[in-house]
């Protein structure tokens, strides 16, 4: 599904290397988690994959289903099947949530040469999906993320994921700012989307999210590299002992 090879990335503005050779391969239907201390480069990885400005790839590559991602515009990456659930979903005054979602879905369909979805079909589909995430019609009508609580914003991210049905989902600290109930709701939303044809990369500081979204593989990232890879038990080890042991062990 996703294959990242020897990825080196620096900030455009300053001469600071953030990623120093990341290698990662995620198969179809797999759920991988990346954990790591602050500043290890986890979020940068998600931004670079989604095509955000401000980063320069100095070496390496990343491909989605064999297509080179890094040459594409952000919207092309989305149409190719990539989805980033933002750590801080953006508020957009004046743009209605429904309009936004329908425009996005139809833009992706158009880019893939598929037929656009009618307003009626869209309405029916979104109502069903919103219901399972406990997003009421009032939230759908409001401008994108405006006046949403932290939990509502994250649920809205998962709703977008459910509507757009991407192949590769990157979740950037989706657990941040969530209480226990909200985390359960969001995780259930993600788990409902788990599918043999869909892969996930879950970026998190804490192991607790991984109790709900159980990963197949756990990677530990530090100083711009993946320094250790293991099964879900690796997350528990971090939870108990912190990152220090692993960092020492590798050093």
């Amino acid at each position: 599904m996703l294959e990242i090879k020897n990825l080196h990335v620096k900030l455009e503005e300053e001469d600071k290397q953030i990623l120093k050779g990341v290698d990662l391969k995620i198969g179809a239907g797999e759920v991988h988690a990346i954990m790591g201390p602050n500043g290890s480069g986890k979020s940068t990885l998600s931004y670079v994959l989604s095509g955000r400005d401000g980063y320069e790839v100095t070496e390496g590559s990343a491909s989605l289903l064999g297509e080179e991602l890094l040459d594409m515009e952000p919207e092309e990456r989305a149409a190719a099947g990539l989805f980033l659930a933002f750590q801080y979903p953006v508020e957009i005054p004046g743009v209605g949530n429904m309009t936004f979602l329908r425009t996005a879905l139809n833009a992706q369909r158009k880019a893939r040469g598929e037929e656009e979805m009618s307003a009626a079909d869209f309405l029916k589909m979104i109502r069903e999906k919103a219901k399972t995430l406990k997003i009421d019609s009032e939230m759908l009508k409001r401008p994108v993320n405006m006046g949403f609580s932290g939990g509502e914003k994250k649920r809205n991210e998962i709703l977008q994921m459910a509507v757009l049905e991407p192949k590769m989902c990157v979740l950037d600290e989706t657990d941040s700012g969530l209480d226990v109930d909200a985390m359960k709701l969001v995780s259930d939303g993600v788990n409902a989307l788990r599918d043999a044809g869909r892969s996930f990369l879950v970026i998190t500081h804490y192991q607790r999210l991984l109790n709900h979204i159980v990963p197949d593989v756990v990677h530990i990232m530090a100083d711009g590299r993946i320094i250790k890879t293991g099964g879900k038990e690796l997350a528990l080890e971090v939870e108990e002992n912190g990152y220090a042991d692993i960092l020492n062990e590798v050093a």
Partner: protein
Amino acid sequence: MALPQVKQDATDARLAALTMPEGSGWATAAREDALARVQTMGLPGRRDEYWKFTRPDLLTSVEPKPAAIFANDETPLFSEIDRVRLVFVDGVFDAAQSDDPALAGVEIDRLADATQTDIHWARDVYGVLEARGQKPVERPLAALNTAFATDGVMIRATGKAKLPVSLVYLHQSETSDAILHHCIKVEPGAELTVLENGPAAARFNKVMEVEVADGAAFHHVRAQGRDHERQAVTHIFARLGTESTFKSFTMTSNGIMTRNECIVELTGDDAIAHVAGACLGDGDFHHDDTVFITHDAQNCESRQVFKKVLRNGATGVFQGKILVQPDAQKTDGYQISQSLLLDDDSNFYAKPELEIYADDVQCSHGSTSGAIDETALFYLRSRGIPEPKAQDLMVLAFLAEAIEEIDNKAIAEDVLVRLSAWLERRRKG
């Protein structure tokens, strides 16, 4: 006090080229008074403070700058709205192209006809509200209009109008210089909607005086034609009675010179005045919104919402004032003027003013100027929306607050379609 020589010369030259319409009946006195006002004030000059951001030359010159006729490929705005059309071609009423005025369910007379009959209400409006609006700031081009207007309509609503009155301004001569003057009286408890659209002429000077009586409501939606070369100066003078409502929205796309002044006096308690505008400008576009709202009664509400999208060197101007008189307690005043600059070459000049003499008043104002929010743009793109489309969404979202001021949802939707089409065309161009 004598006028500066330059101003005196320019005023004399312009006035010499104009002739007061003959047979103006009762309006003759009003016209002569207005002419005296113009002679005293002189026409606007570059050094005038009120014209600091807009050069008046194109609006005061003896001859108008010729404006090419624009072939509009769109269905005109309001086509879907059930209305009574009154058509003016280069500033001259065209009965053949117009609907039967009687269908609107209000009294409608042509200015020239009205002045021959003793229409009391019109005598109390024509040039009267304009003259009141000359203080504290002079508006010589409006007085010039009162003196020399060649056509216009007098509309009086005594109940709820059956249909909106739609003033359609067609432009067929490259050198036309049109001066239209409309008077509107909405009697107590009555309701009227007036729509205006079209380029009107190469140069267009228009005054609309509106008297909104106690408990009456007046709605106004206007679209200034896409003809880029036309020049326009317009004034709305409105006086509002107790518990009355006045709402005016203007959409402007294109135009090398547009100055829209709106002067509103809230003279009765609990009145509401909303003035809004959305404009899109490209290249040598110049658009000026000048608004003056006077609160002279208690518990009134006024809103000014002006949004401008500028690109490719376009210029936008906003001069907006809220004046709260000593007795106008419990005033609720709001003013916002914002520009979205799509590149580094465009300019927005804003002069928001509050002058408050009452102590129990709520007034807020804000003015901003900025580029498209890159973070939001990326968010939209990351969901698969191509950059141009994402940018359009952001632009329309920016204009939304102004468009929401249109009460009629069908018209608001139509306006939105026009704005989207403009953006679409610019992408191709």
